[in-house]
């Protein structure tokens, strides 16, 4: 059986042993949903006006 690590509780679980994949349990999936709704998941924000996020165009010439 293939094992995976639950993103919430970090426990190892068999992927076929749960209906709640990619979580170990429905409970952990609920916690995850709660975190989405609480706006706890974020990614770094890169301002597009300072140009840091784009490849320098000089590289083309």
């Amino acid at each position, binding site marked *: 059986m293939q094992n995976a690590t639950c993103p919430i509780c970090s426990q190892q679980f068999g992927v076929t042993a749960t209906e709640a994949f990619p979580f170990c349990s429905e409970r952990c*999936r*609920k916690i995850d949903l*709660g975190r989405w709704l609480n*706006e*706890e998941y974020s990614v770094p*924000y890169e301002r597009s006006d300072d140009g840091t996020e784009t*490849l320098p165009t000089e590289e083309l010439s």
Partner: protein
Amino acid sequence: MAKEKQQSEYSADDLQHLSDRDHVRKRPGMYIGDTFSRGLHHLVYEVVDNSIDEAMADFASHVTVVINNDGSVTVEDNGRGIPVEEHKELTAEMGRTVSTLEGVMTVLKFGGKFEKGAYQTSGGLHGVGVTVVNFLSQWCEVEVSRDGFVYRQEYERGEATGDVTKGEATDQTGTKTTFKPDSEIFESTKYVSDILVKRLQELAFLNKGVTIIFRDDRSGLEEEFCYEDGIIEFVKHLNRASDDLQPDVFYVTGEYVDEDNADEPAIGYELAFQYTNEFTENLHSYVNNIHTIEGGTHETGFKRALTRILNQYALSNNLLKNNDNTPDGSDFREGITAVISVKVAHPQFEGQTKTKLGNREVDTAVNSICGDSLTKYLDQNPKIARIIVNKGIIAMEARLAARKARDLLRKRKSALGGNALPGKLRDCISNEMERCELYLVEGDSAGGSAEGGRMREFQAILPLRGKIINAYKSREDKVLANEEVQSMINAIGCGIGEEQDTSKRRYGKTIIMTDADVDGSHIRTLLLCFFYRQMNQLVEQGHVYLAQPPLFRVRQGRKVHYVQTEEEMKGQLLEKGLSDATFNPGDGQQITGEELEHLCRLLASMEESIVALERRGVNLKAHAERMDLETSKLPVFRVTHESLNHWFVKREDVDAFVAEHSPAPPEEPANEKNEEGEEAEDHTPAAPTLPVVQVPELHEVRTINGGLTDLAEFGFDIQSLITQERTGEQEPRYTLAKGDNVTNIEDLRGLLGAVRAAGEKGLQITRFKGLGEMNAEELRETTLDPENRTLIKVTMDDLGAASQMFSILMGDKVEPRREFIEKHALDIQNLDV
């Protein structure tokens, strides 16, 4: 009934006594709960309790319980034995000679008339004593070993059939009671050994050190229980199938005396708990060995203390994310296994089954004791404290999340006859699900272009706006606002979590469209993570796609075309620049056509490696001087010895050097030389511990070496890659000619750029910084129109990598996240999720 007959056999003096017996037999439920299994087994416990009392007072060490072949039960201990001599008061009361033994067996509440020790187990249902057992038995026999002899007395339905008789001599002491429950009273008189075993084991846990032996002569089953560590072992036993979060069991015991009411009898307490990774609460409480199934004041005292102290700890150690939500008692009791045992002089039992302790003073006592010792325990075991508190916080999170999920669902369903579609959704006209498409578009301006450019018939647009928050002092983060998550769930319509039903989705394809920059790729990651975790079926069944908006617009005269990636753009420029171009290496030779293309591709592959080498701080010019003249190879190994760098081309040479300079046998620890000794440890690193430090192989140099071999075929050596020193001489080394244009090139590394620049002539290249920079028509032509667009289907194939990427990108650990982003920022779009 038997009443009349028996009354006639006894004198009037016995009236009171008779009415006791009759009362018990008439209303057995008042004394033993019921006349079913519970009451039947309770008879055994009543007799065993007396033996346990002897054991706890240190007069007995063993209690044996036997179910005999005929269904009668024998309980035997090696205590002092019930006194058998004449009891004066009773004799006077009855008007005939009555022994203490007979009093114990036939007079209700007689036990209370002689000392039973500090913890008298009486009250309510329980502790009614062996008298009741006798009253409810068809027959009963007591054998007392005491003062060198064995004494016996027999009873029928609670009446002594004769006086106490003195039997054979013995050097033992103890009491042995055998009784056969009366089938006139009980529904069934068949004992179940599992029930008895369970209770006897419980008693052995609760009374540490006492040996309890059980035997069922009907089946031959035999068990022996003895626990030196008492309820600590009880907790371990209960947790035997679970994973502990605490290595040891918390334990506290003692006697509590209320200082303001010193006259009140002391309350004995014993408490043990251990956390496991389970989610349930496993609380067992006892009062005077009686299992209080309905709980009561001893439990509330413990619970209040636990909640109070753990919250205090969480607060003072800053373990709570925000103070708006604190774990409640039930959160902190998830996964706890606890045993509470108290000894109370006058317990008041309440509740349906009279198994709930009512004494207020016990609450105060347990709360105060438990609070003090728990505080100490947490301070002494900070690691465990953290684990326990975090478990409570997770439990709280789960509880709040479940509530939020419920609210979310209710909100969806309460809307007028079905889904409440989000106001921001620009829905399509068709309702043929398979044909319809939902574009999730990040950014307002992009949403505008998309709305204008979409094919209204079957394309819907849901603009999502990331919300910028200040996550840490030094950086900003983007989150998907709560409303956005809800809009998305409602628009897609297939539900989330365990309630997913992809057949109910409103669109055949859900397409994520974000800017082709780093911010866009982060948002895409966020959205994909959401789908992966909460709408995994949608992804599994292949209904989620990524749109591929172009990165460049290329205008040549009146013709316009779009290019999607950096790579592609570079490739196109190279191709165009190469046609009709001539490279003059300076010696009259000319390189053109396929040969020039070959050279350019070779230089492109070397360029990456040279940049990688320079990033290590190794300058190409300096490195060229280290070239091994014999083989014309650059050194691949760098060994640092006594702060000098040594360079090697071959592995063997490295090994030889290292062997020669291998570290001398370790010196005496430096701190011994330090006479002061005080801060010696902090200063030891001053001495070089490793004389030879080997830097990992410089792999990129292998690529450069390979490239140099190929370059030699064109007649170039390494010098051709190194910028010419400005010697005042203005003569260019190389030139590139294309039509009338001639470009001077200082070194070969500049050739690639020169060719691309030549290719760019006559082109007007625009790089889109975001979807919003495209107008509606452009967006439609390149990204929306099924005729021209490229969609990438999101699959679950690369789940391991994707999942890891999500957790790093969203993780709390700042360092790995920053590292990861720097490494992958530019090629995240290549990661096929």
